[in-house]
């Protein structure tokens, strides 16, 4: 079974600064996807970014980028130029590819607060 660990329950950052959220995972699989989801107080879970395990290049989406270290099983999220609207719970999630598995496995989340 796969596990996802987010070791930072809470983090804070000043507006316009950069923050990095950590995620590690445990799996014996070789083919999988990793995701970061954002859940603001409105509760809607929003996909931020995804990374295919077979790709060595780190994914980037505007101010959001990841540092994917497959051997270390690490998948951190960097948010640049933080904005007040980035305040939310952030969840790291793992999806094994192939076979009959279709479920996302989530970490416990990191609460990020962006301060003005």
């Amino acid at each position: 079974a796969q596990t996802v660990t987010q070791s930072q329950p809470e983090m804070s950052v000043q507006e316009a600064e950069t923050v990095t959220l950590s995620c590690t995972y445990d799996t014996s699989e070789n083919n999988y996807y990793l995701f970061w989801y954002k859940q603001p107080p409105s509760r809607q879970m929003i996909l931020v970014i995804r990374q295919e395990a077979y790709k060595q290049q780190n994914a980037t989406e505007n101010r959001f980028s990841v540092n994917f270290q497959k051997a270390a099983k690490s998948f951190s999220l960097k948010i640049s130029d933080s904005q007040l609207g980035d305040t939310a719970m952030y969840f790291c999630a793992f999806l094994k590819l192939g076979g009959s598995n279709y479920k996302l496995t989530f970490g416990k989340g990191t609460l990020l607060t962006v301060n003005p």
Partner: protein
Amino acid sequence: DAGVTQSPTHLIKTRGQQVTLRCSPKSGHDTVSWYQQALGQGPQFIFQYYEEEERQRGNFPDRFSGHQFPNYSSELNVNALLLGDSALYLCASSLGQGIYEQYFGPGTRLTVT
């Protein structure tokens, strides 16, 4: 482009009762997954429906059941409610053939008293 919708938004039930939650997938999606998110925790997978059948199930008791209709919408039913069933229930939709990205609805907050 309509996103994933869920109803109701909030629900209060008494122990032992039964509840039905509803989900309409994002336009063009044919697969629906249900997750339970307890307070302060990440979502836990309940089950997934594709082509009107349960395709995969997580570690939840048989009190949790579901259904998918021909229009791809879905229902989650929970029988004999327990206090521990109080949680946010999230529905996510995806494409059966390209299931790597799941899009979530706003959730239904269930409180069992």
